[in-house]
């Protein structure tokens, strides 16, 4: 089955800085991949590269059949990126924001309403200005914008940040639902417990390259055991990870 995301020694530039210095990554449809690694390892850049927002100048890079080196813009309509900076307008209400971004990518009105309802913002908060929302609620609004797009590839940059416990459960449930419906998810996260429970595979990045890839038992086992159970700690970074987790 042909991979959704295929990077082979891909180099991506941020200005002149080679944020991705020859990365190899393959993601199959319906997989949930967790990106791990120190700050500056290139996690966010991988996500933005998959969205066609960062120029790939060397190696192979195809996402959903689009060759990023030739036509990066082609893939954008079929993916969604939930980044740190949310593109929400403080003066507008939640409904206005989600409607704007929804209709911007040709989402149907009922998709938009459903998205709002799914993230629990269709009640009192619906007509509150985004400027007055808490960080968690803003993140839910950004999530609603993502849901309205019904993307094939979810690119989540530390999605659990700022979310309260209940919102994290909601997010996990939404991710599982989307994957069941054939979506694929790539996410970076510092919330290990939840991320490991979700992820089918863990990719550790270091200095813009893939340092290590391992399948994580997505089963009910507690994340810590799942990790330690692997045994074949190849590079020292993995040993560190298991020690820390």
């Amino acid at each position: 089955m042909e991979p959704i995301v295929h990077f082979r020694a891909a180099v991506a530039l941020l200005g002149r800085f080679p944020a991705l210095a020859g990365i190899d990554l393959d993601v199959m449809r319906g997989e949930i991949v967790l990106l791990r690694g120190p700050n500056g390892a290139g996690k966010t850049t991988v996500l933005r590269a998959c969205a066609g927002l960062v120029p790939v100048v060397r190696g192979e890079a195809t996402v959903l059949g689009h060759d990023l080196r030739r036509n990066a813009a082609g893939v954008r309509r079929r993916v969604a990126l939930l980044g740190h900076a949310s593109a929400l307008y403080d003066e507008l209400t939640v409904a206005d924001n989600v409607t704007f971004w929804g209709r911007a990518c040709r989402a149907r009105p009922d998709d938009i309403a459903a998205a709002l309802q799914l993230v629990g913002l269709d009640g009192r908060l619906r007509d509150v200005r985004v400027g007055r929302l808490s960080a968690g609620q803003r993140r839910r609004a950004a999530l609603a914008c993502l849901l309205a797009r019904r993307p094939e590839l979810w690119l989540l940059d530390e999605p659990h940040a700022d979310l309260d416990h209940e919102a994290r459960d909601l997010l996990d449930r939404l991710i599982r639902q989307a994957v069941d419906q054939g979506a694929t998810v790539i996410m970076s996260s510092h919330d290990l417990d939840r991320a490991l429970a979700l992820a089918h595979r863990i990719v550790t990045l270091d200095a813009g390259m893939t340092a290590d890839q391992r399948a994580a038992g997505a089963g009910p086992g507690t994340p810590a055991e799942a990790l330690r159970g692997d045994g074949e700690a190849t590079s020292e970074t993995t040993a560190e990870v298991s020690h820390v987790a």
Partner: protein
Amino acid sequence: MTTTLPPRPAPGAARDEADAARPATTASPATRVLGAAALVATALLVLYGLVISPADREMADSVRLMYIHVPAATYLYVGCFFTTVASAMWLRRRTPGWDALAEAGAEIALVFSIITLGTGSLWGRPTWGTYWTWDARLTSTAVLTAMLVGYLALRRLELDPAARSTRAAVLGLLLVPNVIVVNRSVEWWRSLHQGSTLVKLDPSIEGTMLVALMVGFVAFGLIFAWLMVHRFRIAWLDQKADGLDLEAALAARRAESRAPTAPETEVTP
């Protein structure tokens, strides 16, 4: 580490010290010849402009400023033309050479515009009693100078190289159209109020005065070329110096991984 010099056919002129190691400069045999020619032409210009050519009947000696003013104004527009063409080519080809040429063109155009404004107002003072006669050409040159200052400010302030080149190229592309629109509207605006002062600016000139003006064009042309070559090379070096080329940057980036810095201190909530 001996720098192995690629075999270079030694040009005619004997350059012993240059053969030993490449001199760290933006000069080259071509620019030295160009520089020499420019100096000779400038000397000729001084000779003709100040000594040989007679004073004008009406404007007396202040007409000698014209031998600088008109050529400077001409090469000001040539510089803007370079910038716009180079910006258009950069938008199509995205090669750094065009970006460097656009920057060089604008900066040198700014130098010539200052000269044009200076000599223009100095010329106005004795002839019409005021430094600034709101003459159509001088006014539009002033507006053009402001545009050039804006263009160079944008280049200096935008730090991300990729964004800088793209934005400067769009601004540079609009430079000549803007100049044309401004010139037309200023010309039109001035013609409303008084007959075009063009006639007084370019008195009928012949004989040695005409020669002086021609020498002025040649001298300024050589100076313009010399400045362009050097400024282009500086822009070229700028790109190379501030951004190591891809290989070196990649090597540095990969080196980071072999010696991971702080161990991963992930704090699980």
